[in-house]
């Protein structure tokens, strides 16, 4: 609580990402104004050009580490911040851009750029926890704004932040959705993906594609078998599971063994 009037000094940083998670903060709307009574936004380039130097009480980091510059930056943020929160599936798992991690990097560069040698990027897009200690991780693509706010509220009162990380199925059932696997034969990653988004995809009649990342104890092998039973080829199964949070540890481990 080192900020003005005993407020928490908050900094928001962006690494490799789409800005969608920062957008969630602005999307809080009225709640953001209420939050500002308790929080001093010391650094948030998207919202204010008044960028104050650290140290910060809380740093929210959106985006994955995918350049040498970001590697330095995130270490610097860690040194300057009491609490570091990785916000969203890029920061927490490496993000959608980690789909390139599964490919030959030189090929990847050549596909997009005429002069790949000019492109400065790390071979892999990685979660920030690969580089620094992260105090809390909020996943989601994008992070859910209410979950993000809830984390801030928990930090504000000084408690350890917590969210349930049980299967999306539970949230889906609480919401009263019809299971798309059972009623439509539609592959859905819900059983291995954690709750938090509001079970959106099944609410729209489609299978979850996993943007919130794996539950604490996921069973991707069992799910893959089920997908095969539904008629998907192994290639299709792998492709379904290799999505926004493919670089999360459990999914990565699964895919590595499944495709061997």
């Amino acid at each position, binding site marked *: 609580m080192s900020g003005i009037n005993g407020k928490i000094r908050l900094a928001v940083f962006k690494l490799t990402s789409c800005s969608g998670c920062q957008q969630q903060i602005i999307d809080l709307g009225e709640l953001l104004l209420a939050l500002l009574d308790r929080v001093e936004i010391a650094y948030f380039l998207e919202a204010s050009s008044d960028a104050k130097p650290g140290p910060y009480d809380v740093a929210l980091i959106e985006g994955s580490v995918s350049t040498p510059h970001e590697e330095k930056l995130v270490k610097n943020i860690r040194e300057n911040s009491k609490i570091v929160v990785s916000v969203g599936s890029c920061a927490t798992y490496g993000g959608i851009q980690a789909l390139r991690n599964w490919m030959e990097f030189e090929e990847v560069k050549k596909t997009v750029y005429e002069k790949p040698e000019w492109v400065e990027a790390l071979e892999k897009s990685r979660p920030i926890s690969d580089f620094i200690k992260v105090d809390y991780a909020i996943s989601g693509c994008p992070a859910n704004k209410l979950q993000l706010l809830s984390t801030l*509220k*928990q930090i504000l*009162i*000084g*408690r*350890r932040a*917590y969210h349930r990380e049980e299967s999306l199925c539970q949230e889906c059932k609480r919401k009263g959705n019809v299971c798309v696997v059972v009623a439509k034969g539609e592959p859905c990653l819900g059983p291995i993906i954690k709750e938090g988004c509001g079970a959106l995809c099944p609410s729209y009649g489609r299978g979850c594609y996993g943007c919130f990342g794996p539950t604490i104890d996921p069973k991707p092998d069992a799910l893959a078998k089920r997908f095969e039973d539904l008629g998907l080829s192994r290639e299709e199964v792998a492709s379904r599971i290799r999505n926004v949070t493919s670089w999360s540890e459990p999914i990565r481990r699964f895919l590595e063994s499944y495709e061997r």
Partner: protein
Amino acid sequence: MQEIVRSKLTPTPAEIINIIPETPDTKTFYFKPKAKLEKPKPGQFTEIYIPGVGEAPVSVSGIESDGVIIQTVRSIGTLTEYLFKLGRGDLIGLRGPYGKGWPMEKLKDKDVLIVGGGIGLAPLRPVIKEVERNRRDYGRLSILYGARNPSLLLYRYEFDEYRKIPNSELLLTVDRADETWTGNVGVVTQLIPKASVDPRNAVALVCGPEIMMRFTVKALEKQGFKGNQIYLSLERRMKCGVGLCGHCQVGPYFVCRNGPVFPYWMIKKYFWVDQI
């Protein structure tokens, strides 16, 4: 018709009136409830609540006549970590007391063997106090207490008092000694053969980590203790405290409602089963 639904899971505010540091991660709190709570019995627990933070079941380690409840807490989870930041005068919430405590009526005229491991001594402390208070009602009192290292022993400031209780003994041990330690080294079960109680006419009250309790039961049986002479206080995730939320089940029992203290014979069937 619009109706207000009053939950039974409502805490009573209580003021922290004293805090005693015990070990690096353990403190003893004195709570004075703003409204009268039922008087806890030894071995019962309360749910300690902090708004916006959560709740945790904590056993009662002392009961005072003026309604003050003494509880020893280890900082290990969200709630307890937060509780450690509070000071005198701060308010918390209490629900309870809940559960079945130690079988005090069954201890009458019996030797009492207390076996505690680490923070497990906390729920046993009211038994010691009770035996001390009504000394003639009970037989020999033997307190066996162990911790991982000397700095983790609770209530060290009271040990002399325990030793002064007539017809009693206090045997201590630590897994790892330091330079200050001159006593026993080893696990608490090693003390069991040394306890000078008569297994034919004794009741053993055990509380500690699950693994320690397993070894203790084995050691006690070796001394001739029967299933109805051993009482264990179990730990589970007692979220509601009243047998509604389901989390604390061990076999057919709700630890919060049917326990936390169980006679060994009652839970024997499940006690040795992995992850039951």
